[in-house]
């Protein structure tokens, strides 16, 4: 046996620098979050004595248990709705010859551009007391008949379920697509009937994927803020995220300790579910890699039934995208909103648009949001691309970079908001409430999303493409500039667009961190709803969603062209 020459353990300087940056971004807010939950907070915001009373109060309070039960029902209910719709869509699109089925992906494009607040509001308009759905019920059953009360746990479940269904569709269609027809054909040839084949082969193969999706929806439901805040709170249905929000925003003075304790509990729940999720999705991926040689998914000829499935697609499309957009468009032209009335059509006006466009605060809000999105995406895109490249090429220590950059995933948006809020409040210079603070926090929050795209992008570049350059006599920098960079560029751009879209869409973190000078669209929409300015909200929402849909279309076209998985 030859003696191995002992080479010193050398870390690339790039890995060291990137690790330090990541640690500096992730460790401080985490520390402050934990500190807040176990310290008294003084009137000036500084930490007082150590205490466990916030946890004690929570666990002694029946409210926590009640809200947790709400949370669980809400999570499972919305998961059921999302997976039911997603499965129907995915099966029709991937496995049948239904006409127009390829247009379903438009769902995902449009829904990626719509801010969550606006989407939630559109359902409140549709399902609210004066909304068209209740109008129809009154028409059918008379004024004493049953009415829909959207401000309830049921309302939350339906809205969240529908909200998540485009993503459920995307994830499930990749599960259905991954099933090679030859697996099923082998079963049929072995003498199993259609049902037995579906049960023993199709479903069993899809199961890890479906379970992974289930957990993903559960996590999302536990983390979601917009729907509990806009749908649940008015109906006195509280969950953990709204508890956190209320501890800070509704109580005077803000009860930071309570918010911290709630946050830690939510964090623990999410971590546990994420562990399950990772385990399951790894299994799901392993199932997906077992594919036959001549890979082709089976498309069933439905005969005449394909018009029935096409109709189903049409109805689902209307529910998920059509009606919400229609009602918001409708409301945006009205002087005041009081449901859908024929008479209202004659009062339609462009005044809301004029008002929104003419108001400097609205324009500022849009400008701030665009700056936030641009800067966040420009920081996250190249940064994660570099991390991903080092990790994919197995540079020593780069696996650690990958793990670090994925870590923020365990923070629900509102929890990360709480964590950064405390960090910013404790800084010796004024930082809280600035646009820069918002950008910093959202960059950290969306690191994992950027990492996912960059990693997938770099993974597609065969290592031999770089080796061929080195053997041609090119030095490392030449190879990086002439071969690596041009090849990862599409991935970086795709990643950039995605991070831009998701970072401007969410409200939960911004609502805790934005100050008077750093209002962003999502928060402005939220406030408009609180103030009852529905028509201005609708007009601003239409303008913003229109702009974002353009970006979203660009994102999808690029992602498709470069074969990146979109979700």
């Amino acid at each position, binding site marked *: 046996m*030859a003696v191995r020459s002992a080479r010193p353990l050398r870390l690339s300087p790039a890995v060291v620098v990137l690790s330090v940056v990541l640690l500096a971004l992730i460790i401080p807010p985490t520390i402050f979050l934990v500190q807040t939950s176990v310290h008294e907070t003084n009137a000036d915001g500084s930490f007082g004595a150590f205490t466990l009373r916030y946890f004690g109060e929570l666990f002694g309070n029946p409210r926590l248990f009640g809200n947790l039960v709400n949370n669980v029902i809400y999570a499972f209910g919305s998961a059921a709705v999302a997976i039911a719709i997603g499965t129907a869509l995915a099966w029709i699109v991937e496995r049948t010859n239904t006409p127009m089925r390829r247009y379903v992906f438009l769902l995902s494009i449009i829904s990626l551009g719509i801010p969550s607040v606006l989407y939630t509001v559109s359902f409140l308009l549709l399902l609210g007391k004066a909304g068209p759905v209740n109008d129809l019920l009154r028409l059918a059953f008379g004024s004493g008949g049953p009415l829909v009360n959207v401000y309830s746990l049921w309302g939350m479940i339906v809205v969240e379920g529908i909200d998540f269904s485009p993503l459920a569709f995307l994830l499930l269609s990749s599960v259905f697509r991954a099933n090679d027809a030859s697996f099923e054909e082998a079963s049929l040839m072995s003498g199993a009937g259609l049902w037995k084949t579906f049960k023993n082969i199709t479903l069993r193969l899809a199961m890890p994927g479906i379970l992974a999706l289930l957990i993903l929806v559960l996590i999302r439901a536990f983390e979601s803020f917009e729907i509990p805040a806009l749908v649940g709170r008015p109906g006195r249905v509280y969950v953990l995220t709204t508890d956190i929000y209320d501890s800070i925003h509704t109580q005077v003075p803000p009860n930071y300790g309570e918010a911290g304790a709630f946050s830690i509990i939510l964090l623990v729940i999410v971590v546990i579910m994420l562990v399950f999720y990772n385990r399951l999705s790894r299994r799901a991926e392993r199932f997906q890699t077992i594919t036959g040689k001549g890979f082709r998914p089976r498309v069933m000829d439905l005969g005449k039934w394909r018009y029935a499935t096409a109709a189903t697609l049409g109805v689902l499309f209307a529910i998920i995208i059509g009606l919400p957009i229609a009602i918001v468009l409708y409301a945006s032209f009205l002087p005041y909103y009081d449901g859908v009335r024929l008479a209202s059509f004659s009062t339609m006006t462009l005044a809301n648009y004029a008002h929104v466009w003419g108001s400097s605060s609205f324009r500022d809000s849009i400008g701030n949001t665009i700056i936030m999105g641009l800067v966040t995406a420009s920081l996250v895109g190249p940064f994660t691309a570099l991390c991903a490249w080092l990790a994919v090429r197995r540079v020593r220590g780069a696996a650690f970079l990958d793990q670090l950059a994925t870590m923020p995933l365990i923070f629900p948006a509102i929890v990360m908001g709480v964590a950064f809020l405390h960090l910013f409040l404790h800084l010796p210079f004024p930082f809280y409430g600035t646009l820069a603070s918002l950008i910093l926090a959202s960059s950290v929050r969306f690191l994992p999303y950027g990492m996912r795209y960059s990693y997938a992008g770099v993974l597609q570049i065969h290592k031999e493409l770089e*080796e*061929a350059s080195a053997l*041609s*006599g090119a030095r490392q920098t030449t190879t990086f500039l*002439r071969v690596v960079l041009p*090849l990862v560029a599409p991935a970086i751009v795709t990643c950039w667009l995605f991070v831009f879209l998701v970072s401007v869409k969410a409200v939960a973190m911004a609502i805790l961190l934005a100050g008077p000078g750093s209002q962003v669209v999502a928060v402005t929409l939220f406030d408009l709803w609180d103030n009852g300015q529905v028509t201005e909200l609708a007009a601003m929402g239409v303008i913003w969603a229109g702009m974002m849909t353009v970006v979203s279309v660009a994102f999808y076209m690029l992602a498709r062209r470069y074969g990146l998985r979109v979700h």
Partner: protein
Amino acid sequence: MLDVRDLHKQYASQGGRPGGGVFGASLHIADGELFTLLGPSGCGKTTTLRSIAGLETPDTGHISLGDTVLFDAASGALVPLYDRDIGMVFQSYAIWPHMTVFENASYPLRVGRKKFGAADVRKRTVNVLERVGLAEYIDRPATHLSGGQQQRLALARALAREPKLLLLDEPLSNLDAKLREQMRHELKRLQRDTGVTTIYVTHDQSEALAISDRIAVMEDGRIAQVGSPRDIYNRPTSEFVAGFIGRTNLIRGDLAAAVGGGALAEVVTSTGALRCLFPAAAAARKGIAVVVRPEHVVISKDSAVDGDGNRLAGQVVSEIYLGELMEYVVATDVGTEMLVRTAPGKHIGVGDRVRLSFAPEHTVAVAGVAGA
């Protein structure tokens, strides 16, 4: 020309399995030679190639190309891969999709240490593209080429700066069978025309036999045998080499007395006493392997077979028509089976009584034992 001495490179084991690598490979390759590294996957041939290229750093050993020491563990010398005068064709071709044919092929002339003027780059690139028959595609995007054309482009790029050494890593494995056979001839002609010293890595033994000046058969990170294709095929020195190269009848027997190299001697086998050729000297021992290639066995229905070779009688139990050949399995009267290949048209069928004979010089005793 190329000297590789006592090369070691061990990979860390993964998931309880040994990592593999190269354990003491030595090679000497002459100027202008087409030298093949042949072996099953995991035998270390690719690691050896990548160590020569500079894509891997060996643990110990010495590699030199001409007068230049590329790697020497003892002195710590290590020439970075971009300063080695080596061209390589990768298994995946590694054609850059964001460049044209010209940009791909001229890349080594534009980025290397040695600088070329724009006109010179153009001239040399056109020249090398003409050699591989791609001159008419010069301004096309590389992604518009077919698999075979990409392969030629990879070859052109590797040859562009006229390297001292050309490395080919399973270059034909991604082509379909017909194109593969055509490319063998082209590769061989191109190598002869340019005279570039070439190392060719493959796991396909027929490819290795067809193309090489010399072959090194590798097994478990070691070199099992080096020789001309005829040597390797007809005079294997180990059971592994005999079994890996082509189909063969392997008969076990005992050798009563020591034999000198190149001599004929009798081995008592399960198929009877056979007169065998010993390419290398061997001591008396039991369980020695004797190899007879199926095409060296003469099959006949006549009872009278001439020649003084080894003889057996038996019955045909299966026949396969291979187009240019017939293949028979014969159950011998002593209870063993022999594989026989012969030209078709002998009117021998299943159930026929046949006689087999094979000359002693084609009955090769193998000194080494598999896995030894």
